[in-house]
């Protein structure tokens, strides 16, 4: 619902009122602050920027960075770029799916971890690569990747 957005974010969106070209920027801010973009948020942004809800929803569903469901506390992003692919990223993905019990794009039931794949992180020299929140882990084996995720889960309690 619109009234759930934090005041600070609302006033930031207000500054873009009537500027449809700011849509992606504003949605990024909502995503960063709230963690996902709910139908209520879409309606609020549409109203303030002066565009239709369908256009906002169209943009939200077009770009990979926007999510329509709540996200886990931690994000594990496994690179599936070419160098990572030939370096065995698929086997790492299989191991992570088995460990977390979720598929890419999904979040664990306790909202601890969201698993994602990304097309290329641009750190191909370190392939295969995985980014946990903002920390890069390179030259991984499936066992090492699972150990890193185990540590994240342990710290998350």
């Amino acid at each position, binding site marked *: 619902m619109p009234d759930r957005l934090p005041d600070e974010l609302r006033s930031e969106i207000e500054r873009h009122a009537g500027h449809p*070209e700011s849509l992606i*920027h504003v949605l990024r801010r909502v995503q960063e602050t709230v963690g996902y973009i709910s139908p209520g948020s879409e309606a609020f942004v549409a109203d303030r920027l002066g565009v239709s809800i369908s*256009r906002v929803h*169209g*943009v939200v569903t077009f770009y990979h*960075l926007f999510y329509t469901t709540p996200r886990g506390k931690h994000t594990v992003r496994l690179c599936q*770029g070419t160098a990572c692919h*030939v370096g065995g990223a698929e086997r790492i993905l299989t191991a992570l799916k088995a460990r977390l019990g979720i598929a890419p794009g999904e979040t664990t039931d306790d909202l601890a971890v969201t698993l994602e794949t990304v097309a290329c992180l641009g750190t*191909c*020299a370190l392939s295969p690569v995985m980014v946990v929140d903002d920390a890069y882990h390179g030259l991984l084996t499936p066992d090492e990747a699972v150990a890193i995720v185990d540590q994240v889960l342990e710290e998350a309690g």
Partner: protein
Amino acid sequence: MSDRITSRAELDALKQQELVRLAAVEQRITVCNGTGCRACGGVEVKDALIEEIEKRGLSDRVEVMPTGCQGYCQRAPLVVVEPAGIFYHGVAPEDAPRIVSTTIERGELVEDLLLEDPVTEERIPHHDDIRFYTGQQRIVFALNGKIDPTSIGDYIAHDGYQALAKALLEMTPDGIVDEILRAGLRGRGGAGFLTGRKWKFTRDAAGEVKYVICNADEGDPGAFMDRSLIEATPHAVLEGMLIAARAISACEAYIYVRAEYPLAVEHIRKAIDDATDFGLVGEGVFGTDFSIDVHVMEGAGAFVCGEETALLQSIEGKRGMPRPRPPFPAQSGLWGHPTNINNVETYANVPSIILRGAKWYAGIGTKTSKGTKIFSLTGKVANNGLVEVPMGTTLRHIVYDVGGGMRDGRAFKAAQLGGPSGGCLPAELLDVPIDYESLGEHGAIMGSGGVIVLDDTACMVSVARYFLDFTARESCGKCLPCRVGIPTMRDILIRITEGEGELEDLDRLRELAKLVKSSALCGLGQTAPNPVLSTLRYFEDEYRAHIEDGVCPSGVCEALAPPYAIDPDACKGCGRCAAACRAGAAQGTPGDPPYMIDQVLCIRCGACFDVCPFGAVTRGAGS
């Protein structure tokens, strides 16, 4: 605003002042803090070195400088001690005390941190003697590793913004366009259109309002030179854009950066802020009538936004869907105004062309492709990293001289060039000089310059499937050939890799490829079939092995994995195969060779093949 530079004389004075500042320290330790080195602890190494220098009271004589990507990502984190140029690799924070006490204080080498030449096995102390660097010609990358990317002073000390001053004070806009045209600079984003001609179109287009855009939506999997350039020398990219803006009379500029590159965004923002404080961006630059605003736009994750008409939609806050051209952005671009769009590396070439002249630049490269090109060299090659070489360099030089040859002594099978729009070059083309034309002739493209080296463990059908899977997911869905054609091709490839292919599939793939290439709306769709066409061209036997023999020769496709066996004469009984086997199929007694593989239990995963140090595990129909 006291820093504001209003004349050439003030820029020169500032340059002198910065040179004096840089010369004030006796020694400088540069620590690579690009994304690659950061991933390996580069920031921690930098902090440990700073702490150690302070602890020993050396701060007034020794400076620790974080730099952008130095390119030799394979050896991260990298540390260079200047002015001696001593190169340390794989440095850990714990090494800081040794580096400071041994090298800084006593002038001696920390032997075990030196690079070992893979051929001679000699330790190489100096940066300038390392083959990875000596095999390159670094023009665009000249300052990577030499300056702090967040310091405008460092950039100005190294002739930064001198080209802008020259362009604004000594050249006419037409003169700038002419210079770039005569240099023969071509777009580094993929298609290789002449940059000067693009500028001329935009300059000649009717309209008061014009825009300059830098396409930093580097989405090709396997390419990361644009990220490194923005991270390491953001001011050079910005200076190139400002010169372009002058040439086409634009008053507003945008840099569209991929969402996945947070450090690049941070550095380019800082560069714009600092340049604004110094009066190099804003109103009346160098006291002329040239005024410019520069904005950063962060993408939101969509490969297709690297296509220029889709990128324009995205800046306007819409779904990034391409539109047919013409009209070209030069005629009708951002919000309908004439717009010049170039890639990061293209802009980064501009300042040196203006400073050193078109004639000098045109002397580098081949007849049709001038200057240097940066390649991201990755895959199964010994040295991964960023490689800048003149156009016309052979793949052999890149892979074997700069790249140090194949990793683990395996055989070169192919190099994939140009990402999802490109193709694979087989071993017999290693000696072809690489430029825009020669690559096109052989079924690949320059693209943004990704070079992924594949060895004999790569399955070419699976590589083609990988790329089609990528483009199928990234297709925006606007035109039918791309939306339906690519997934159809991908499904055929999946069938083949799962052992259900038929020979007619090869003709179907060729026919679909022709259709998609000729009818898709944008560059993404038109080039998407290239990975299939090029693997079919050079590796049709591998497709046939999957279909006719039911075997994936490299053992990648699980459903078609070849059987494994152990050569009793080569087996030494070390037991590594049994330890690696998940199925309990590799059996034997340690120290009592040979081991055997139980063909009933074997799941054909290839783990034994990978771990055997004696090459005793054999793969294939003969096993």
